[in-house]
């Protein structure tokens, strides 16, 4: 009997298990971990883009040794006194080694210094709380001060975090007013949408790029399936590729779906063109 029982529908963690080989989350074929790593965690059989952690993404996109982190000392304070929130935060800190769901800092992509912010799905599904909003806002403000381009990488399942209620909601206008100022100065903002980008994150900073790129197959949308099922909003014509990167490109919401192996080169070209 497989671990978890015959009827277990447990999906593997987004982190591939340690060992010599692992199973692709989509096609379920066996892949050598070494091959998968070499292929930027894209399945060589079915091209499935496995989720990257924030630090893997930084390593993949920036020049070696160029990235320095900002605001690592910010911590969530449980402003609502929400049941079990501190415990859930602590658990994810232990699990991921991250202090919260976003990492920000400055790094070089090709010849360009770029102010960056990235959410990490492993930490509370990458949901935007006060710390995430503050880190991203400060990254944008530093870009304003130093006249730098901004790259924000989204990967959040639930959008804005329920656990900080109205204060999470306010991170939507907060990040947006910061980006407004950056935009108004004629500076470049590239939004990179990765799996998944949903709800309050997609409906704020992730949708405000001068350029919006997305990884193939990423889930991208406004309303999560659980909520829309409740609202019965999907009865009728729901396209097969609904709420994917390809769907959003087809509807004109994403500028370009870019395979992971081409991302860095594409970013460099866009930075060159706009610099």
């Amino acid at each position, binding site marked *: 009997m497989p671990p978890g029982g015959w009827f277990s529908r447990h999906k593997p963690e987004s982190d591939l298990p340690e060992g010599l080989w692992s199973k692709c989350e989509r096609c379920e074929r066996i892949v050598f971990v070494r091959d998968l790593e070499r292929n930027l965690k894209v399945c060589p059989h079915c091209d499935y883009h496995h989720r990257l952690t924030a630090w893997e993404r930084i390593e993949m996109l920036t020049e070696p040794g160029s990235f320095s982190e900002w605001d690592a000392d910010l911590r969530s304070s449980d402003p609502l006194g929400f049941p079990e929130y501190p415990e859930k935060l602590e658990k994810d800190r232990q699990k991921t080694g991250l202090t919260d769901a976003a990492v920000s800092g400055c790094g070089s992509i090709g010849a360009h210094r770029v102010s960056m912010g990235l959410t990490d799905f492993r930490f509370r599904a990458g949901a935007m709380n006060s*710390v995430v909003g503050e880190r991203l806002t400060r990254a944008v403000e530093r870009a304003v001060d130093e006249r730098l381009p901004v790259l924000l990488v989204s990967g959040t399942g639930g959008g804005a*975090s*329920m656990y900080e209620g109205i204060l999470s909601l306010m991170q939507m206008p907060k990040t*947006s*007013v910061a980006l407004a100022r950056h935009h108004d100065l004629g500076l470049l903002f590239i939004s990179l949408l990765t799996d998944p980008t949903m*709800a309050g994150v997609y*409906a704020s900073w992730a*949708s405000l790029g001068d350029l919006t790129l997305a990884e193939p197959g990423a889930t991208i949308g406004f309303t999560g399936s659980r*909520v829309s099922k409740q609202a019965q909003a999907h009865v009728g014509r729901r396209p097969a590729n609904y709420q994917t990167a390809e769907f959003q490109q087809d*509807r004109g919401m994403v500028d370009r779906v870019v395979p992971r192996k081409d991302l860095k080169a594409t970013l460099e070209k866009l930075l060159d063109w706009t610099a």
Partner: protein
Amino acid sequence: MPEALMKLLDAKDHPLLSVEIGEVNRMRRHALDFEKPIAEVEANIASLKQITEGIGEDRTEEIRELELLLEHITREIFSNLSAWDKVQMARHELRPYTMDYVRLIFDDFVEIHEDRHFGDDPAMVGGMATLDGERVMVIGHQKGRDAKERAYRNFGSAKPEGYRKALRLAQMAEKFRRPLLCFVDTPAADCTVEAEERGISESIARNMRDFALLKIPTMSIVIGEGGSGGAVGIATTNRVAMLEHSIYSIIPPEGCAAILWRDPDRAPEAAEALKLTAEHALRFGVVDEVIEEPMGGAHRNYDETARRVKASIQRHLSELKGLSGGDLVQSRYERFRRLGEWYEEGRASIAVAGG
């Protein structure tokens, strides 16, 4: 209540049926559970008045006593509203909606319908108006009163074209240097396939960004449900006020309960945990003012509620009047910039929203 009086109250075409009785019956029909004692006493008072006026039997003494009782129980009930009670108040079927405020506060309203992209969205209304002679732009979510209108207004859930209409009107207000007023009352933005296809996320995000840059005084008032992204899509304004029994929330309590406990019936508990009341919004710095509602709630006295909302609008607009376009953008920036709560490790102090 005597049976004869009940008959009198329920009679549709009774010659004595006054406007007041019709209104009392309407209140009774739509009363929330916790409002029922109030509605009953109101019905009793109305019937006694009917007897006094209609049959000529003097019951003024009893009426006076009941009126005292009414005041007492109303005060009692409304001083102890739970978060869940407030959710129901915010969604009350008789609660004044955007167009009620437009009618009661402004003059010369000219509604504008299109977004120049796709089509009209009846869930988002807007147009030019005057406020005691001052020319202003008004936009807001609009809910429907009866089943037919509710469907027409999509329950106050706006689609991308609604948000784009709102932005177009906001930018027109800026072009002609008129203040912008936004009435917020939506359960959430529309979550259908068509809204997704036309970019509901982009339309909300763009509104927040471009509202941030408007060089005119802007103000929003949460009059009922401040539902998540659907609300902030027209509420990134210099000032935000909120009616006392309105809510402002990241997620409906039913949705929160479904996600947390897989049980929508625990919504009252979720409402409590989400801290979605006006009182909390003020404490967190999310709103600048809570507008007190008349005793028993906005739906019991439209005129008085509108008068208070109008006074709030005039006070805030007069405070913003002296500021230059650049100062308005700057102070709006600072207003939203400070929202949130966190702490810096190694430091004792906690950064609290609202300073």
